């Protein structure tokens, strides 16, 4: 590879930000000052290229410091890592949190997604527009920020030597938004059940100081890891298999089988990736765990790594979670300094460490193979399966990918024992589940219930729907399905929702009362998939655009007008997206719209919205 640069120098500030992440450049070949030796010996090459996975952290460094990524900054990163500039440009332009054009240091991200939409995001958007002018410069509309219990919400990101982030929740509707800094409510404010002794996964939230390892241990922390060391790796996998645990990230795959298959792979090292990209609109459970009980994730990852034989684990954390990032960084550093991470953990001869990698605004990077590409410094496009991650995952090595909630379930499995754990819930959906209640509901937040509770039970716990009456509930998020107000007896289990033609997905329960404009909600869903498609395959790249266009046409017609052609078109395109797309994004992009048409009767001639 023979790199060609366009001779644009980075500013000293850009250079400092990049070199702070990558270390000082060893020679002029990698962007340092020229010495006589550089004229005689080439360096960089393979060694620099091996660090390609530092591309995303380096882009973050510039974006965090300057607010955007200039040609000079990009070139310097490319020199440092021997990455072709065209590829690095392709990566930088993939993520919505990065800009390759100048912009102000401070940008306000205003959520216009589903839960906020149901609570007046349109009005907030109007007042922000009045205050700050058209979107794109100092503010931008944003997909779900994972703050849905505080909807409508916004997030301000400010670049600088110490980058700042501020979140704003429960924004007032028709008055100017007040952006003075204020304290963010504690993580437990999102857990209406906090303190309830029957909680399993959420039991420490609000009780133990999330910053304190001692508090964590005083509340049962690290009992599971000790039990894991007693059982040995094979014993841990056996427990997880017998517990019946299935993944909570959306695909509901049996966790024990994934671990077993990866542990068996002869190729090494094995990697562990914790999927903390949480970007499904309406999902915020992983954020609450990471903010409220970060050591639990650290311990759970250590157990998983011990079972599967991983020396290294990554947490792929969505870029819009500043507080989770701070808390996890502290938890990891503290655990490391106290011998719970690093070499020879607790004297058991097992070594493991965790690195956090931040996403940069791309829902698709939550797809398990897109995560690998993103971490490795490529565009976050899903890979073709097979090969599956258990064979060839991160850096081409056997890899376990698990969701945050899935991982923390391993702690009660080990402390209670698999039989006791499996006794909770139903035979096919064992344990407890976190539900993300949002939208038109009196007490939104994260709820933990044993599998088997019905949607009605859950809504009652949350104080029922606001407004005049319940219109519909979106289960599973934008990739999920709507159920009607007369279907509240559906049991919230994997099998129960499947039998009802819906899905639990990531645990989204988005409540919509009769004041919510369903056509707007569907348009937002379509817009979300159009925005978030990676663009790799035709059914999704173009299909999501055509779906949005058709919905626009339908919703512009007077209620009751004939939209038969557009409905046929939606079905035809939807079916091809489901059947022929590469990954789950395209395959599910029509689910919610289809269920709104078929189950709710939205757009049927008799239905005047």
């Amino acid at each position, binding site marked *: 590879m*023979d790199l060609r640069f366009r001779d644009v120098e980075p500013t000293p500030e850009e250079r400092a930000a990049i070199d702070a992440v990558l270390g000082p450049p060893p020679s002029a070949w990698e962007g340092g000052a020229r010495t006589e030796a550089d004229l005689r010996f080439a360096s960089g090459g393979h060694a620099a290229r091996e660090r390609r996975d530092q591309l995303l952290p380096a882009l973050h460094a510039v974006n965090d410091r300057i607010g955007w990524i200039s040609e000079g900054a990009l070139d310097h990163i490319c020199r440092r890592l021997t990455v072709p500039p065209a590829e690095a440009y392709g990566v930088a332009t993939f993520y919505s949190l990065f800009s390759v054009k100048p912009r102000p240091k401070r940008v306000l991200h205003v959520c216009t997604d589903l839960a906020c939409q149901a609570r007046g995001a349109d009005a907030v958007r109007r007042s922000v527009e009045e205050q700050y002018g058209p979107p794109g410069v100092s503010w931008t509309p944003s997909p779900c920020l994972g703050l849905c219990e505080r909807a409508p919400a916004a997030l301000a990101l400010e670049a600088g030597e110490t980058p700042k982030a501020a979140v704003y929740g429960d924004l007032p509707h028709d008055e100017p938004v007040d952006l003075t800094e204020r304290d963010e409510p504690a993580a437990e404010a999102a857990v209406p059940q906090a303190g309830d002794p029957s909680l399993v996964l959420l039991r420490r939230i609000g009780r133990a100081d999330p910053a304190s390892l001692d508090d964590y241990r005083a509340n049962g922390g690290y009992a599971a890891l000790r039990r894991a060391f007693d059982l040995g790796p094979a014993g841990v996998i056996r427990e997880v298999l017998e517990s019946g645990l299935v993944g909570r990230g959306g695909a509901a795959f049996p966790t024990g089988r994934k671990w077993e298959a990866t542990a068996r792979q002869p190729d090494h090292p094995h990697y562990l990736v914790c999927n903390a990209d949480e970007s499904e609109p309406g999902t915020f459970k992983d954020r609450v765990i990471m903010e409220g009980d970060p050591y639990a994730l650290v311990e759970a990852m250590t157990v998983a790594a011990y079972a599967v034989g991983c020396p290294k684990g990554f947490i792929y954390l969505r870029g819009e979670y500043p507080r989770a990032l701070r808390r996890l960084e502290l938890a990891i550093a503290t655990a490391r300094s106290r011998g719970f991470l690093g070499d020879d953990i607790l004297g058991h001869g097992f070594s493991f460490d965790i690195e956090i990698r931040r996403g940069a605004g791309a829902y698709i990077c939550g797809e398990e193979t897109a995560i690998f590409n993103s971490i490795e410094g490529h565009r976050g496009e899903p890979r073709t399966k097979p090969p599956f991650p258990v064979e060839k995952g991160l850096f081409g090595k056997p890899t376990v990918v698990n969701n945050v909630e899935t991982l923390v379930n391993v702690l009660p499995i080990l402390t209670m024992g698999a039989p006791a754990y499996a006794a909770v819930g139903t035979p096919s959906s064992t344990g407890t589940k976190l539900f993300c209640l949002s939208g038109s509901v009196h007490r939104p937040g994260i709820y933990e219930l044993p599998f088997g509770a019905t949607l009605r039970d859950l809504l009652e716990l949350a104080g029922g729907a606001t407004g005049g009456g319940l219109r519909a509930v979106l289960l599973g998020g934008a990739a999920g399905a709507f159920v009607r107000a007369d279907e509240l007896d559906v049991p919230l289990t994997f099998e129960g929702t499947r039998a009802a033609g819906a899905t639990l997905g990531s645990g989204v329960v988005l409540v919509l009362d009769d004041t919510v404009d369903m056509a707007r909600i569907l348009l937002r869903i379509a817009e979300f998939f159009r925005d978030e498609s990676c663009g790799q395959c*035709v059914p999704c790249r173009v299909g999501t655009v055509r779906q949005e*266009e058709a919905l626009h046409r339908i919703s512009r017609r007077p209620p009751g007008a004939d939209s038969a052609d557009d409905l046929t078109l939606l079905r035809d395109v939807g079916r091809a997206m489901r*059947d*022929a797309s590469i990954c789950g994004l395209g395959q599910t992009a029509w689910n919610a719209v289809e269920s709104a048409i078929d189950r709710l009767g939205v757009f049927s001639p008799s239905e005047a919205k």
Partner: protein
Amino acid sequence: MTVPLQPPRRLLEITVDGEAVRVPEGSTILDACTATGTGVPTLCYGDTLTPKNACRVCVVEVEGSRTLVPACSRKAEAGMVVGTSTERAEHSRKVVLELLASSVDLSTTPRAAEWIEEYGARPERFGPDAATVEQPVKVDNDLYVRDYNKCILCYKCVDACGDQWQNSFAIAVAGRGFDATISTEHDAPLTDSACVYCGNCVEVCPTGALSFKSEFDMRTAGTWNEAEQTRTTTICSYCGVGCNLTLHVQENRIVKVTSPHDNPVTHGNLCIKGRFGFQHVQNVASDG
């Protein structure tokens, strides 16, 4: 020259549209279809490249699979039952053609019109306001033209320019979703990029989005006439490698140069000299 013999490959049997066929292990479903003479349309598949399976026009139904699978990349497995023309497969192919034809100019994509007719695709059903990839043609050098109005984002040019062949990495995919395009860094002109004008991207482009400047100019002038052209395969005279050139000649002038993909050494790739260095042959004074 001796060619090392490959160890014999095990044969496995699969069923394509009810017909049993035996193919060597490692073959794709597309190979099996070719063996039975079953036509499956392909666009992003390239005979000299690793399948990217991005266009999805080749999808077929495989028994037991939740979704359709791309024939061009999915490996045949013993006992697989493949349906190439089931209602489900044909539906997706038709819609993929509609989605492409409604957003991209397929006028120079060989066989596109034929397939659109065959599958009954109606790209116009998305209405006159359907979004397209329309943009100005990029003419920034004398050798080849990039007309991304015709680009289906098949990634072939990127793979040919990158680690699969040329290792120049002058172009990559930038942006995301419908806004994604093939681009140099910061969308700089090709002359400011790492491009070495090997034209290997032009060789693999399935749509004519990348074309010789000579072809582009003749098409613009309305003088391009493929039916009149002859093709002569010869050996490049510039250096000792001995690449094969296929000279496309119209009215006794070379109008473009391709290279046979089945050449065991070069697989259709050339350098700037073989690809574009033909002008001297025809620098004959016009008065003879």
